[in-house]
């Protein structure tokens, strides 16, 4: 991500003296009886690439439209640079938006689309031309300047939309599912292009997406939303490794969740907890920073790639269970094994396919051992 200097990690959210560019304070938005946004408080800092992630209908688009000025909060205030933006109409905000449908003007050429916002500012003609050319170069669209939107490809249209929204050099750029209409390969290339452009221009980006992989790739921080609330705001690695709730763990990536009852190991100072999860099975040994009471309900979440799959029982493993291979999903670079335990639980374990498929060690119906270390998973409360 954008880093002020190589030594210093870009993390303004950890600096108490840093003033946020955007601040939501207790924002609620209702449409009739429906609460789209429920008491959201959130700070976004300068030069951040901030992702709002959630399933459709979770309120992420509403949150973004409030920043753009198309919706007004029912309660609470939104501050941009310390100023309440509620009374500022969308055409007066230093905020630009890239629309999901791109919303390119079909009657105008690529050049005129990009110049549209600049002309509204009554900028001089020379400066408009200069700025448009700059944007065309940034998005590598020089060759298509004279074309109409219907004469270029989807990926090019996406870049025109980006160029148009960046042309006015906004303080904040909003991207509403910007890559939704592109196919997977192009989407991945474009993600890196977006990060590159964000870094070059130093603009603060807020992206709305339902694609967790996209959010993880591009964002400096991710806010996971559900039913109008923000469940967790953190950097991608924290979201992935230490999800705050079962919902986050389940929404981001693949995960095994095992329900059980916690028994803290007393006085060891490392936060070790044993989780009884099934009759006749040894408890799962894990660690946590949370406090669990004895007998409290707990969910143990572990990512498939953190579970090793072996023929024999590993000797030094903190946790090991026996099971039978039920299914194998071959994805080329990795394989996911679905292993059924005697208790009926199905656990997913992932291994990298370092050998050719013909020499695979396990196949269907094989008896295998699954093992993981004490720190591999996380313990979650309700």
């Amino acid at each position: 991500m954008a880093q002020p200097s190589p030594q210093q990690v870009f993390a303004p959210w950890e600096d108490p003296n840093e003033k946020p560019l955007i601040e939501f304070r207790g924002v609620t938005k209702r449409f009739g009886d429906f609460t789209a946004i429920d008491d959201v408080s959130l700070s976004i800092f300068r030069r951040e690439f901030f992702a709002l992630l959630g399933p459709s209908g979770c309120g992420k688009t509403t949150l973004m439209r409030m920043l753009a000025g198309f919706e007004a909060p029912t309660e609470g205030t939104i501050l941009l640079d310390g100023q309440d933006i509620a009374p500022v109409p969308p055409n007066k905000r230093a905020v630009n938006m890239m629309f999901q449908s791109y919303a390119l003007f079909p009657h105008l050429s690529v050049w005129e689309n990009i110049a549209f916002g600049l002309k509204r500012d009554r900028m001089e003609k020379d400066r408009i031309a200069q700025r448009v050319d700059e944007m065309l170069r940034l998005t590598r669209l020089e060759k298509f300047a004279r074309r109409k939107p219907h004469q270029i490809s989807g990926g090019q249209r996406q870049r025109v939309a980006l160029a148009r929204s960046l042309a006015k050099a906004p303080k904040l750029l909003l991207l509403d599912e910007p890559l939704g209409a592109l196919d997977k390969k192009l989407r991945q290339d474009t993600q890196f292009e977006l990060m590159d452009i964000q870094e070059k221009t130093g603009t603060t980006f807020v992206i709305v997406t339902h694609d967790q992989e996209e959010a993880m790739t591009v964002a400096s921080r991710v806010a996971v939303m559900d039913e109008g609330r923000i469940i967790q705001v953190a950097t991608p690695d924290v979201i992935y490794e230490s999800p705050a709730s079962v919902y986050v763990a389940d929404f981001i990536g693949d995960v095994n969740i095992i329900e059980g009852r916690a028994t803290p190991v007393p006085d060891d100072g490392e936060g070790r907890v044993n989780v009884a999860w099934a009759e006749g099975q040894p408890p799962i040994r894990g660690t946590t920073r949370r406090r669990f009471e004895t007998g409290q309900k707990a969910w143990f979440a572990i990512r498939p790639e953190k579970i090793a799959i072996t023929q024999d029982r590993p000797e030094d493993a903190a946790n090991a269970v026996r099971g039978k291979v039920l299914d194998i999903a071959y994805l080329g670079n990795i394989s996911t094994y679905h292993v059924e335990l005697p208790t009926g639980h199905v656990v997913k374990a992932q291994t990298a396919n370092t050998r050719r498929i013909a020499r695979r060690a396990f196949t269907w119906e094989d008896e295998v051992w699954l093992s993981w270390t004490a720190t591999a998973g996380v313990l979650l409360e309700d």
Partner: protein
Amino acid sequence: MRRFALIAMPYAWLLALFLIPFLIVLKIALSDYALSIPPYTPTFDLSQGWQGVRDFFAALDFENFVFLTTDDLYWKAYLSSVWIAAVSTFLALLVGYPIAYGMARAAPEWRPTLLMLVILPFWTSFLIRVYSWIGILSGEGYLNQFLMGLGLIDAPLTILNTNIAVYIGIVYTYLPFMILPIYATLEKMDDSLLEAAEDLGCSRISAFWLVTVPLSKTGIIAGCFLVFIPAIGEFVIPSLLGGSETLMIGKVLWEEFFNNRDWPVASAVATVLLLILVIPIVLFQRNEQKQREAEG
């Protein structure tokens, strides 16, 4: 073969109901007036054989077209028709655009009802609807009674039998033809375009002029032609609502045909009218084609 039959159908239709009647009218326009039945010479006489055909063609001339240029009544009538049609088209656009815009912005569940209401007048005879305007616009009509009742005017306004009444009649009659194509283009428009325009610094009003109007251009052009083309040749409205000052080519045509019984001159008038109409019709076709290309 099937393909040929499909294409042949519209062509056969045009041939039978447009081209042949037109050739007959053209032939009459090239004939001379005569006190007979039918009231022109020559008539086609096959009994004379080849000689008869040659005599027939020798008797045809452009005399009637030349006559149209000698009397200024005709070119004034053409010009006045074009003028009245153009003014009416402009007024219909002024009235029709806001209606189409309102319909396109209405909640989706209301749109079929609104569309129905626009088409509803067609359920009553055109003649009756134009006739009823006499009751509204005349000296003792509802409009004057209403205005005098409000105390806005002291003496009744003279509207009936003036060009104003003709404008009202044409705008009223052809309004649906203006509304429907404009509505069709506005309804297709993506709302996010207006949000994008606002986001880029437009006020609501400038977004309307810079985005909505250009995007509904094809609808506006189609609507204007659909009103302008029939309005030029309009006969019923000027003869019922217009006065002696209202000069329209449809009325002249009627008088030549039924009052003077001069079929050849009437046919010549009709032929020239058709030639005048070809220009906007070709332009209209080109507009439609352009729209299809833009969409394709």
